[in-house]
């Protein structure tokens, strides 16, 4: 499915990152990066394995603390807010994990219910059921309601993982390697789902991947992360219109013989 034109508000920055640095022991993963995510935009962060892509979204969601720099999400500085404020902010951010991170001991229904009942006070049983039905329909997996995560395929797990974040109606979606380990057909389905989420839920998203097909079909803008810095940022064509030997192999591997 071809990506529909997104409505991006370039005057409204939902994530603003400045001079962000993060190291693990002596290894500097991020070396002073700047990034803006606009309202309604899908931004793809491309890079090699271990280049710090996942670290970036973990910093954005407050799972990790930066060594230096600032991260402003929906107007709040993630590094300098209280635990309670961070918890409230996280409800507005959806995080889709690389391995889906579904709760093994709960059915699909309980997985979806878990964040909802804990974040919406006085929600009734019928409202919960309605919300679950709605997100399951959105990801096309209504029939899996009573299944355990172990009974689902890789693609279904990804979809349920996305559904679990959508149930809170997030304003921002963070996708960590959404197509990793999936067959090409399921990859296309997941890419379509990411675009559908953008249109239907009016989300702004950061998509972490090294899959160029995913980047091309979901991204409004691409940011190439190499050696802890964004080497190129722009449209897909702009980023790959280069002779840089660190970037060219990405394109060649995916799109030439």
């Amino acid at each position, binding site marked *: 499915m071809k990506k529909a034109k997104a409505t991006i508000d370039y005057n409204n920055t939902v994530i603003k990152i400045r001079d962000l640095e993060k190291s693990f022991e002596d290894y500097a993963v991020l070396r002073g990066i700047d990034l803006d995510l606009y309202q309604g935009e899908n931004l793809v962060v491309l890079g090699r394995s271990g280049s710090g892509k996942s670290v970036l979204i973990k910093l954005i969601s407050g799972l990790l603390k930066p060594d230096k720099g600032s991260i402003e999400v929906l107007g709040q500085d993630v590094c300098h807010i209280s635990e309670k404020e961070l918890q409230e902010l996280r409800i507005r951010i959806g995080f889709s994990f690389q391995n889906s991170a579904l709760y093994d001991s709960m059915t699909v229904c309980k997985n979806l219910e*878990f964040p909802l009942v804990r974040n919406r006070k006085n929600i009734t049983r019928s409202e919960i059921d309605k919300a679950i039905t709605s997100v399951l329909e959105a990801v096309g997996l209504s029939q899996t309601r009573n299944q355990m995560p172990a009974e689902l395929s890789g693609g279904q797990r990804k979809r349920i993982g996305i559904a679990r974040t959508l149930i*809170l109606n997030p304003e921002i979606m963070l996708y960590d390697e959404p197509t990793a380990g999936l067959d090409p057909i399921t990859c296309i389905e997941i890419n379509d789902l990411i675009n559908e989420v953008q249109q239907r839920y009016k989300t702004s998203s950061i998509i972490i991947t090294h899959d160029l097909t995913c980047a091309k079909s979901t991204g409004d803008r691409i940011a190439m992360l190499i050696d802890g810095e964004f080497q190129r940022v722009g449209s897909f064509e702009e980023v790959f219109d280069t002779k840089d030997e660190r970037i060219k192999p990405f394109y060649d591997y995916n799109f030439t013989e």
Partner: protein
Amino acid sequence: MDSTDNAEEPIQKKSSGFKNSLATFFADLYKIHLFIVRFFKEAFVPPFELKEVIRQCYEVGVRSLALISLTGFIVGFIFTKQSRPSLANFGANSWLPSLVSIAIMRALAPLVTALIASGKVGSSIGAELGSMRVTEQIDAMEVSGTKPFKYLVCTRVLATTITLPILATYAAFIGLLGGYLNVAMNEGLSYTAFVQDFFQPLMFLDFTASLIKSIVFGFTIGIVGCYQGYFSTKGTEGVGKAANGAVVTAMFLVFIEEVIIVQITSNFR
């Protein structure tokens, strides 16, 4: 380089290795302290995860019953059997129920229950939370605006703290049955007479001390299991280490606590 430099190198390395181990030990101790403080800060503040506490009590309690029954019975039976010859030397066979009751109520029931729970419950908590950590399920709870500590740690620690005294009381009862069976087989004592002799030497302090001990053991097993699992790292290897660490540390601490509590309660006798 002077040859003495070479000779000193391993000593320096050893000393820096020792310093690092010491620093890690104190850092861990501080982390455990923070973990316990966090438990008390979150466990008794609403919203409460009552359903999950009840589910965990079921997991800890009901699923351990078979093992506790078997162990309790064997401990009572064997202890009675092994004590008989020593008492018989003094012609004090009639003291057997009293000896069994003191041993079971004061020490064996809480201790054996705690050791079994360390192995069964502690390892299961460590492995479960460890695998949730390495598969990012705990991170997923955190980023969805929920409190994984409250849901995963507080509920499990409360469950072990509530359930262990109940299990220890049950183990004492089963131990009593084991002891009675052995006495009935050898001395032909009636059940009523055995129970009367069993409870006669016990004081209120024995019951209280046993209860307090079991509460402390339950809390320890829960906290250690959760701590090991919650901070587990390094993939599947880390899960194994968390489970193993939970059992070894909990058993070690249970013995230390046993010694301390016995010392304290003996002052009140």
